[in-house]
C-alpha cells in the first residue's frame, strides 16, 4: 500500500512541479543570459534582440521545412487517401490486393536527426485531413513485440490504455508484484473493438463480417496509420511478427504503414522475409536530399541582408564542415547557428547595434560612454581611424556625439554593403557555377566562403573563371547574363538598379549584334582576300612577310564585335565584383554583425572528450580555477589533484610501470606539497592515507583508460598511451 500511494503521489505531483519549473526557467532565461555577460547594461536589449532573431530564424526554417516537404507529404497524403478509398469501393486490381497492407516506404536519407520534424508534420497533416488515428513508433521504445503492441495501443487510444495500466499497476503492487499482465488490453483484438466502437458500427465487432459489408458506411472508416520512424533500427523479428498479426486483422481494421527508411529501399527486403513482405503492398516515396535542404536553408538564412546577424568565414566553415563531414543534419546546422547567435549577443556588448537599420540608429543614440570606448577599441574602427586625417582622428577620439554621427554613417554603409553584396554574389555564382571544373565552386556557399576570406578577385580561381567566361559561346553567355539580370531586378538598392540598367543595355547590344550578324556575314570574305594574294607571290621572303602580316592582321581582326562586347560584359561583371564583394573584415564596425569565434563553436559542437581529459589532467587550472594550480611550461603543480600528479608521473615511465616506484614518487611529490619531509622517521613506512589516495588515483586512471593491469610482470601496470615527456 505504502509503495503504491507513494508512486501515485509521484504521478500526481509531477506535472504541477514541472509547470512550476517551466515558469521559473522562462523567467530565468534572461538572467541566465545577463549573468556573466560582458557589458551588462545593454544585456537586456541584446537578449531581446537575440530572442527576436532566433524566433524569426525558427519560424523561417519551419516554413522552409514545410515548403520542402510539401511535395512528398502531399503525395503521401494522396496515397493514404487513395488507400482508404480503394479499400471501400475498389476495382478489381485493388480487390486482388485487398489482403495486403498498404505501405508507404519513405526514403529520407541518413540525416536521422532531421526526420523528427518531417514525421511530426506528416502526422499532423494526416490527423487534420485523413484520419484521427495515427501512431508513430520509434525503434528504441519497441524492443519486444509486447512493447510495440503497447505503444501502438497507447498512441491510438490515447489515455485509455494509460489509465487502465496505471490501475493495473496499482492492483499488481497490492496483489503479487508479478510482471505486468496486460493481455486484456494489449492485443490487436482490443484495438479492433475500440475501433469499431469508435466508428460506431456494432456489426463490425462480429468476426464473421467481411470487407464487402463494411463498405456500407464508408465515410466512417478512416484508416489507422502506423508510422515506423526508423525502420532500420527495429528488431526484424518483432517487426515481422507485428506485420503477421496485423494482416490477420486487416478485414476489420483498415491498417496502413509508413516506413521511414534512412538508407535504401532494399532494407525492407533485407529485414522482412518474403512470407512477410508479401503481406505488404509497398509504394516508394523519396524525400529531398539533405544537401539540397542545406542549400535552401543557407540561401534563406545566411545569404540575405534581412538577417542582421552574420557569420564570418571561419565559423561558417566550421558549421558547413560539421554538416558535410559528420552528420548531414540540417537541424544540427541550425542549432549551430543558434549557438553562434547566442554567443554573439552574449559576448559582444556592441551587438545591441546588430538589428535593423532604424532600430540600430536608435540604439546607437543610447550607447553609453563605455560602449563608445569599446567602439574606439574595435580593430576595424582603428583601421578606419588611421585612414582619417589627424584632426578627424582627434575628434573621433574625444567627441562622443561626433563619434555617434560617424558611426551612424558607418552602420548605414554596412547595411548598404550587405544589400549589394548578396545580389552580386548570386550573379557571380550564376555565371561561374556552370563552368567546367567549377573553379569557384559548385555551390553558392563555397563562393560565399571564398568571398568572406579574402578579396575574391585576387584569387587564382577567380582569374581562371574569368578566362573561361571570356571563352563562352554567344547563346550561353546571353542566357547567363539574363539570369543575372533576373537576380538583380528585384533588388531595391540604388547601385543594383544602376547595375541592372547597365546589364540590360549590354543584353540589348548582344541582341542587336545577333540581328546584325544575320544581315551581314561579311567577316569571312575579308579574311579570304589575302589568301588570294598569297597565291600570286613566289618569292620566299615575300611569302614570309605576307604570312607574318596575315598573322598579325588576323590577331587584330580576330576581335569580332561579339568578342568586344563579351569583354565589355566581363569587365562590367569584374567591376561589380571589385566594388561589392570585398570581405566584410574590411568594413569598419563589422564586428557588430559578424560572429567570429570559430573555436568556441567548434568546441561546443564538435566535442573532443579525449583532448579535454588530457587537458584536465595536464593543466588542471583550466577546469579548477584555483590560482595555486597555475603553472608555467606545462608542469603540474604539486598541489594539483592526486590524479593529475599520478598522471604526470606515469608519463615519465615506459610501457610497464612499477607500481611501487610510482607510489614512492607520488608520495614524495605530495609530501613536498604538504611541506613535510617525505620519510621523517626513516622507517620506510608509507602513510596510509597517502597510500589510499594513490590507489584511488591509479584506479581512476585505469578507469579512464590510461593504464591496465598486466600479467607480464607482477606489481606492474601497462601504459596504454604513447608519448609523454
Amino acid at each position, binding site marked *: 500500500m505504502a509503495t503504491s500511494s507513494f508512486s501515485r503521489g509521484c504521478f500526481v505531483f509531477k506535472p504541477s512541479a514541472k509547470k512550476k519549473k517551466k515558469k521559473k526557467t522562462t523567467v530565468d532565461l534572461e538572467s541566465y543570459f545577463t549573468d556573466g555577460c560582458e557589458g551588462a547594461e545593454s544585456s537586456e536589449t541584446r537578449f531581446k534582440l537575440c530572442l527576436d532573431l532566433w524566433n524569426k530564424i525558427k519560424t523561417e526554417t519551419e516554413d522552409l521545412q514545410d515548403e520542402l516537404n510539401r511535395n512528398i507529404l502531399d503525395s503521401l497524403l494522396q496515397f493514404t487517401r487513395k488507400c482508404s478509398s480503394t479499400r471501400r469501393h475498389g476495382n478489381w*486490381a485493388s480487390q*486482388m490486393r485487398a489482403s495486403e497492407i498498404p505501405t508507404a516506404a519513405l526514403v529520407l536519407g541518413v540525416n536521422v536527426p532531421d526526420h523528427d520534424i518531417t514525421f511530426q508534420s506528416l502526422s499532423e497533416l494526416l490527423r487534420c485531413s485523413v484520419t484521427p488515428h495515427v501512431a508513430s513508433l520509434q525503434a528504441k521504445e519497441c524492443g519486444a513485440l509486447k512493447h510495440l503492441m503497447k505503444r501502438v495501443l497507447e498512441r491510438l487510444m490515447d489515455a485509455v490504455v494509460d489509465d487502465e495500466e496505471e490501475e493495473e499497476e496499482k492492483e*499488481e503492487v497490492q*496483489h503479487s508484484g508479478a510482471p505486468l499482465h496486460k493481455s486484456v488490453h494489449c492485443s490487436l*483484438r482490443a484495438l479492433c473493438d475500440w475501433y469499431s466502437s469508435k466508428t460506431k458500427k456494432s456489426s463490425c465487432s462480429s468476426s464473421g463480417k467481411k470487407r464487402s459489408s463494411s463498405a456500407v458506411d464508408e465515410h466512417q472508416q478512416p484508416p489507422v496509420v502506423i508510422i515506423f520512424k526508423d525502420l532500420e533500427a527495429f528488431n526484424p523479428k518483432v517487426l515481422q511478427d507485428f506485420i503477421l498479426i496485423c494482416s490477420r486483422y486487416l478485414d476489420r481494421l483498415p491498417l496502413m504503414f509508413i516506413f521511414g527508411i534512412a538508407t535504401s529501399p532494399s*532494407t525492407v527486403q533485407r529485414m522482412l522475409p518474403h512470407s512477410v513482405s508479401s503481406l505488404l503492398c509497398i*509504394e516508394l516515396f523519396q524525400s529531398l536530399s539533405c544537401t539540397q535542404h542545406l542549400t535552401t536553408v543557407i540561401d534563406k538564412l545566411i545569404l540575405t541582408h534581412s538577417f542582421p546577424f552574420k557569420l564570418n568565414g571561419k565559423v561558417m566553415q566550421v558549421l558547413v564542415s560539421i554538416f558535410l563531414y559528420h552528420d548531414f543534419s540540417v537541424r544540427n546546422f541550425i542549432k549551430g547557428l543558434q549557438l553562434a547567435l547566442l554567443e554573439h549577443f552574449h559576448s559582444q556588448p556592441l551587438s545591441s547595434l546588430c538589428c535593423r537599420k532604424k532600430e540600430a540608429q536608435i540604439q546607437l543614440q543610447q550607447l553609453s560612454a563605455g560602449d563608445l570606448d569599446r567602439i574606439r577599441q574595435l580593430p576595424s574602427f582603428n583601421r578606419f581611424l588611421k585612414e582619417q586625417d589627424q584632426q578627424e582622428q582627434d575628434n573621433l577620439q574625444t567627441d562622443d556625439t561626433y563619434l555617434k554621427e560617424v558611426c551612424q554613417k558607418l552602420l548605414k554603409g554596412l547595411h548598404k554593403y550587405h544589400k549589394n553584396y548578396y545580389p552580386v554574389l548570386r550573379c557571380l555564382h550564376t555565371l561561374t557555377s556552370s563552368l567546367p571544373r567549377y573553379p569557384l565552386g559548385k555551390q553558392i556557399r563555397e563562393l560565399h566562403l571564398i568571398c568572406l576570406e579574402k578579396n575574391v578577385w585576387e584569387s587564382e580561381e577567380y582569374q581562371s573563371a574569368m578566362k573561361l567566361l571570356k571563352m563562352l559561346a554567344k547563346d550561353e553567355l546571353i542566357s547567363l547574363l539574363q539570369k543575372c539580370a533576373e537576380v538583380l531586378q528585384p533588388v531595391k538598392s540604388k547601385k543594383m538598379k544602376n547595375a541592372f540598367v547597365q546589364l540590360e543595355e549590354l543584353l540589348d547590344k548582344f541582341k542587336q549584334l545577333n540581328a546584325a550578324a544575320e544581315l551581314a556575314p561579311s567577316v569571312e570574305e575579308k579574311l579570304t582576300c589575302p589568301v588570294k594574294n598569297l597565291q600570286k607571290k613566289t618569292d620566299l621572303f615575300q611569302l614570309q612577310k605576307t604570312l607574318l602580316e596575315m598573322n598579325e592582321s588576323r590577331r587584330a581582326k580576330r576581335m569580332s564585335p561579339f568578342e568586344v562586347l563579351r569583354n565589355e560584359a566581363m569587365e562590367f561583371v569584374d567591376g561589380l565584383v571589385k566594388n561589392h564583394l570585398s570581405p566584410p573584415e574590411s568594413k569598419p564596425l563589422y564586428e557588430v554583425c559578424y560572429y567570429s569565434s570559430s573555436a568556441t563553436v567548434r568546441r561546443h559542437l564538435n566535442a573532443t572528450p579525449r583532448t579535454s581529459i588530457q587537458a584536465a589532467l595536464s593543466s588542471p587550472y583550466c577546469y579548477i580555477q584555483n590560482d595555486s594550480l597555475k603553472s608555467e611550461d606545462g608542469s603540474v603543480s604539486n598541489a594539483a589533484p592526486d590524479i593529475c600528479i599520478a598522471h604526470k608521473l606515469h608519463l615519465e615511465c615506459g610501457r610497464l610501470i612499477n607500481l611501487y616506484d610510482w607510489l614512492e614518487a607520488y608520495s614524495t611529490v605530495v609530501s613536498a606539497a604538504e611541506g613535510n619531509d617525505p620519510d621523517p622517521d626513516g622507517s620506510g613506512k608509507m602513510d596510509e592515507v597517502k597510500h589510499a589516495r594513490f590507489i584511488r588515483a591509479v584506479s581512476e586512471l585505469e578507469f579512464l583508460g590510461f593504464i591496465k593491469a598486466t600479467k607480464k610482470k607482477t606489481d606492474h601496470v601497462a601504459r596504454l598511451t604513447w608519448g609523454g615527456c
Partner: protein
Amino acid sequence: MEGLLEHPGYDGEKLRRVSEQLPCREVQAGMLLSLMGEPQQYCYPSLFIYGHRASGKSHVVNVLMKELELPHVTVSCVECVSSALLFEQVLLSFFGCDAASLLPRSPSLSDFVRIYKQRTSEFPSKQTRYIVMEQAELLRDASVNLLPALLRLQELDNVSVILLSEIVWDKFRPNTGCFEPLLLHFPDYSKAELLQILSAGRNSSYSAEFYSSYINILLGVFYTVCRDLRELQHLAALNFSKFCEPVAEGKETETHKLWKNIEPHLKKAMQTVYLREVSRSELSSGFALHVLPYYSKFLLIAAYLASYNPARTDKRFFVKHHGKIKKTNFLKKNEKTSNHLLGPKPFPLDRLLAIFYSVVDSRVAPTASIFSQISSLVTLQLLTLVSHDDQLDSPKYKCAVSLDFISAISRTVNFDIVKYLYDFL
C-alpha cells in the same frame, strides 16, 4: 461439379457452398469432414495439418468452420506471445468475457484446465468445439507442457485441436513423448489446379475464357520459378492491366498477338519475382552511396578493410615504411581461401580507428561525433555490433556491406580500395 461434399449431419446447402469456396481441395475437405464426423460426434483429439505455404490449410479449415457454423476459435500462435493470451482467447470465444476474466494474472496451464472444466460443466456443448492453431510451429518455443496438453485436451470435453503448420510433425515431437495427433498432408497445387484457382479470381469486366487464357500465359512463364499461389495472384493482378491494353484500345482479340504484346513485360517481371514493389523502382540501386557524410564513408571503408584483411597484414598496408615485408612472403604463407568467401570477420574498435586515421587524408581530431557516427552506422545496419551491447570495453564490429557497395563508396571519395585489400594483392 465433381466431388461434391456429402456428409450426414450437415446441411446439403451449406456443404455446397463449402465446396464452391474450396476449389481443388475437395479431397482434403472431405477427409476432414469424415474425421470430424457429425457435429455432436467426438472427433479425433488432435489433427496436425501440414503443407507448404499457400496450400490452403487455413483456408480449408476456416471455411469449414464458418460455413458449417461449428463452435471454434482460431488462434494465431504469432500473436500469443505468452500462453496467457492463448488461454484467454480460447475461453473468451467459447464462454464469453466473464470466463476470461476468471483467469489469474499469469495463468498456468492448470488454471486454464480448471476454468475450462468448470465452465464446460456449466455450459456443456452439444457440438464438438474446435481450437485451430495457426503457425503451430511456434508452440515448440512455448513452455514444454503446452503442446502435449493441447494434444489431449479432449480428455476434458468434446473438443478437438487442429494444428496448422508448414513443418512436418517429426520436428515437433517433444522428447518426453506425447499423444500423437493424426497427420494430414496438404500437397502443393498442380499446374492445372493453379490455373483453375487463379481463373476463379477473374475480373468481372472480362469474360472467363479471356481471363483464363491470360492466366495460362502467366503460368507458362512463371510456373518454372514460382509455384506459390499468393505470389502468382500478385503477379496476375500486377500484369493484367498491361495485358488488357490492346483490348481496351479495341485492336486485338487474338490470343497469340496478345501474347506477343505481354511477353516483354512478363520477362521483366521475371527479374523481380518474390521481390515486391520496392525493388521495382530504379532508386534502389546505388541510392545510399552518395548520401553518407564524408567521415562516415571513411569509417565504413576502414571497417571493410578491418573485416576482410587479416590483422597481421595491417602493417604492410598502413605503415609507410614497413621495412622488408615482401609481398611474396605474405602470399606464400597465406591461407588458400579468399577472405571474401569466408565473409566479414569481427574487429575491435581500436583497429577500426587506427585504420580510419591512416586512410583518411586529412588529420582528424578524435571527436565525439566520430564515435557517434560509428554507432549510427550500426543503426543503419551498415556495421553490426558483434559483442554484447553491455560490453563497453573495446566493442567488436563487423562490416555488413558488399564489395560493390564499398567500391562505389570509395570511388566517391577517390580512394582505391582494391589496392588495400589483401585478397586482391
